């Protein structure tokens, strides 16, 4: 078959990339080989537009066992325990088929974690939808939430934290990012690097079907004489099989049978085999007629490009085949030796004993294209917002607007659809700043949270990048955890657009700066470009997933008020920054201005001081101040508790709207018992920390004299309304 320009284009390859392929092969590729190049050279697998920027991220640290480059990152939490985690996007599939798209997103990220030998212990997700009144939003939200729940609940891993946001920028392109966290013994971590020649390559898991073969369906329409009906490219998740696969893999990992293991994610058999060979600097030979297939007459092309779920590739030590097969038989899963490692440094594909394709591994991996794409510096518009011209409103009114908005509403409609308690180690579930998961059988725990701030990143990418790292850091701190490391999911528009590339580059700069300063390294992540149409790209939406350690678990610090008449203290300075605030957006539909400034030094000092206070048992509750400002944070502390609060008039700042709704960073609200006040003051003063006493808790009402007064019950109902109507 002749490879035409049309076919090349349908494979998502540029003509100069095709020329490059010919050079590397020293000949024309055949159709199968072209398909393999297209899979390995696409943005998703090659990171061709992002790689040079990702390299700049700090990835090392005292706790880091494995940084980016493996299926997931690994950090050390002491006592031979390690935590494995990663986040991944499944945006496009979820827009086409929300239930299955989200479900298979969860399935994929779980495989990345248990591939490394870890038992998954928590799931998180960050989901972004279009405007609440966009026609598609409701069904997409419904589908995505039940898909995430459907998969996680069935496999029996608690979904404990996440974020659900709405903005019209996602009208045509929702975001579904899933994060998985696992626990492994430090001396039992498995990697994907192949070793040794003539070792058996084993296929395990589900059978291969024609799912998700992308460019292929279009391209094949041209050459296929018996022109089959158009094939659906949607993958259907099978959490039941994944559960079996997980148990079988973890069982096999108990001894030393496995040399290397890799899940089949995007680009399935192709990327898994190439990755293993490339890391081990070996060749790999596959006999495709042995691949377990679900459908009849599948071609080598289809087998290599299928994205069927719940499959793994394993390279075994010699002589371990029998015992390994027994385990997979027990779990009723396919186990087939489909090839071997070789010393040729080629990917060799045989079908019926005939070589159908042969490609040097390096052509697919290290020699894949890398682009230093053009980028534009963000043009910052410093237009000041003229508050005088705005319609006057009452504080209470503005607060109600925020608390009843979809973005700030109580999310239990979402989280009640997730099993948050299975595995019986969930110390704190969704609803607080971060979830807390106990390490099974131990008295230590990890705290986890995911965060994003797309509007900050849009208006000033560097600050936005810094801010999300800090917000994530703060969320862990409020639970008493020491933040250890992050994973990140970079959701951006079209990288061929210089403005978008600029957003990408500058957001990363911000992330890098914050991570370095806070000693908060990046150990894994994922990049998702091409979100939106070329004319209308989504807001830059990097999502940060952080993991922190609670060395000795005692009563968890949550954000709900605990006692009557305790003191409420605000740590960090309030300047009253309203640019990009939730206040302006919800009340005046204004998206203008700069995001609040991020002062990393203050972040670090304030956070570390709060940890000290928690460590000394001086804190009843703690909450970070973020979107919606001080008053929103205080309301949240009241809503989830049995107490209200009386807030005192600030002595200095005059404008109460700035005081209450400003989104200045590095701030925490803490509740302490009156008799601990002097101890707390001492510690904060010694640390040079700015703080003020802003009020105290009381029964029933949330109020400020002469300004507003709302009962706790009303606050709850206001906050609960949106999803209840849903």
């Amino acid at each position, binding site marked *: 078959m002749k490879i035409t320009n049309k076919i090349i284009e349908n494979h998502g390859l540029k003509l100069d990339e095709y020329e490059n392929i010919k050079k590397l092969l020293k000949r024309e590729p055949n159709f199968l080989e072209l398909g393999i190049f297209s899979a390995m050279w696409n943005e998703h697998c090659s990171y061709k537009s992002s790689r040079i920027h990702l390299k700049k991220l700090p990835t090392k640290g005292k706790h880091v066992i494995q940084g980016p480059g493996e299926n997931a990152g690994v950090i050390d939490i002491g006592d031979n325990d390690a935590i494995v985690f990663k986040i991944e996007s499944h945006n496009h599939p979820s827009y086409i088929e929300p239930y299955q798209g989200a479900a298979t997103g969860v399935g994929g990220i779980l495989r990345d974690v248990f591939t490394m030998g870890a038992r998954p212990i928590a799931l998180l997700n960050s989901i972004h939808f279009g405007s609440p009144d966009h026609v598609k939003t409701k069904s997409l939200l419904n589908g995505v939430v039940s898909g995430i729940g459907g998969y996680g609940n069935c496999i029996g891993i608690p979904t404990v934290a996440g974020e659900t946001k709405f903005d019209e920028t996602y009208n045509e392109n929702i975001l579904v990012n899933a994060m998985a966290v696992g626990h492994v013994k430090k001396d039992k971590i498995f990697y994907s690097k192949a070793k040794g020649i003539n070792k058996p390559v084993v296929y395990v898991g589900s059978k291969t079907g024609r799912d998700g073969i992308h460019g292929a369906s279009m391209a094949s329409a041209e050459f296929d004489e018996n022109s089959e009906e158009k094939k659906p490219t949607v993958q259907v998740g099978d959490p039941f099989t994944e559960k079996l696969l997980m148990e079988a893999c973890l069982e096999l990992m108990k001894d030393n049978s496995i040399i290397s293991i890799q899940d089949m994610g995007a680009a399935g058999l192709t990327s898994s085999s190439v990755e293993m060979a490339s890391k081990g600097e070996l060749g790999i030979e596959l006999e495709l007629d042995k691949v377990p297939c679900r459908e009849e007459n599948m071609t080598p092309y289809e087998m290599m490009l299928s994205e069927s779920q719940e499959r793994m590739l394993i390279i075994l030590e010699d002589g371990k085949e029998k015992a390994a097969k027994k385990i997979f038989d027990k779990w009723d899963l396919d186990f087939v030796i489909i090839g071997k490692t070789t010393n040729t440094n080629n990917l060799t594909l045989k079908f019926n004993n005939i070589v159908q394709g042969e490609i040097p591994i390096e052509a697919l991996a290290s020699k894949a294209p890398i682009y230093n794409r053009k980028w534009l510096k963000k043009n910052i518009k410093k237009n000041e917002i003229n508050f005088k011209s705005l319609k006057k409103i009452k504080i209470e009114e503005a607060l109600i607007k925020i608390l009843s908005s979809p973005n700030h509403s109580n999310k239990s409609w979402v989280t009640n659809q997730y099993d*948050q308690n299975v*595995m019986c180690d969930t110390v704190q579930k969704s609803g607080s700043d971060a979830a807390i998961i106990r390490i099974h059988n131990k008295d230590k725990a990890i705290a986890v949270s995911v965060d994003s701030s797309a509007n900050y990143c849009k208006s000033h990418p560097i600050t936005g990048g810094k801010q999300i790292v800090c917000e994530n850091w703060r969320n862990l701190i409020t639970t008493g955890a020491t933040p250890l490391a992050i994973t990140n999911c970079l959701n951006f528009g079209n990288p061929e657009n210089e403005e978008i590339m600029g957003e990408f580059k500058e957001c990363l700069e911000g992330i890098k700066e914050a991570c370095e300063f806070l000693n908060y390294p990046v150990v894994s992540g994922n990049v998702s470009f091409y979100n939106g149409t070329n004319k209308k790209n989504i807001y830059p939406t990097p999502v940060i997933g952080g993991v922190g350690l609670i060395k000795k678990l005692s009563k968890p610090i949550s954000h709900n008020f605990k006692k009557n008449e305790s003191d409420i203290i605000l740590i960090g300075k309030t300047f009253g920054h309203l640019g990009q605030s939730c206040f302006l957006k919800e009340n005046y539909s204004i998206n203008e201005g700069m995001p609040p400034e991020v002062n990393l030094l203050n972040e670090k000092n304030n956070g570390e001081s709060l940890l000290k206070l928690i460590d000394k048992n001086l804190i009843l509750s703690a909450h970070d101040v973020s979107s919606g400002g001080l008053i929103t944070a205080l309301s949240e502390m009241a809503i989830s508790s049995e107490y209200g609060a009386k807030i005192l008039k600030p002595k200095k700042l005059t404008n109460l709207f700035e005081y209450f709704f400003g989104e200045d960073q590095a701030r925490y609200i803490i509740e302490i018992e009156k008799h601990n006040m002097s101890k707390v003051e001492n510690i904060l003063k010694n640390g040079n920390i700015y703080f003020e006493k802003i009020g105290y808790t009381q029964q029933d009402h949330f109020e400020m004299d002469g300004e507003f007064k709302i009962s706790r019950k009303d606050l709850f109902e206001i906050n609960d309304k949106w999803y209840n109507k849903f």
Partner: protein
Amino acid sequence: MKSSVIVFPGSNCDRDVAVALEKLQFKNQMIWHKETELPKSDLIVIPGGFSYGDYLRSGAIAGKSRIIDEVIKAANSGCLVLGICNGFQILTETGLLKGTLLRNKNLKFINKDVHIQVQNNKTKFSNKYKENQVLKINIAHNEGNYFTDADHLKEMKDEDLIAFKYCDENGIKNLNSNPNGSLDNIAGIFNSQKNILGMMPHPERMVDEMISNQDGVNLFSSLIN
């Protein structure tokens, strides 16, 4: 006391229940569904989860497995059997318990802490609870909407076979305190010999103060005589 927890492919609360049993001094064994014999035990637990993915009907396929024949035999000779969540669904599929568990009324998976009231504290499973005690307990299911025919409902009422009913924190049982649409707010039932208990809520999730509360403890300790 010896207990056996049956593990099906797709069970996922098996470890949780084993931890709870061991915490309460049971000598527990995990029994893989392909085994053909059950070790002698005082209590058999069928744990929660999604056996066989809950495909076809929840509990249906597990209800046809080989080990279930052994469970039926043991149950018929008086052994105590506890089915939690998916385990309850499996017990109804085998016929050991009557009735069935339909989709939740709102057609959504529901996970939250709810209240249930002890309806009969004179059984092997409930003797440590007070009369009409209200417990706070976690539920997590898609199909927990209990349904049975009028005759069976009457029989259960006449013979005190209803174990737990959903209620609010004050013990009030009505539509508002019924999370999933269950007939008569039923959350758990006994067979007529009262040696088999099926319940949708998860007592094994309520044995650890750090994680939740201890409202499930008495269910397990009632069994220890």
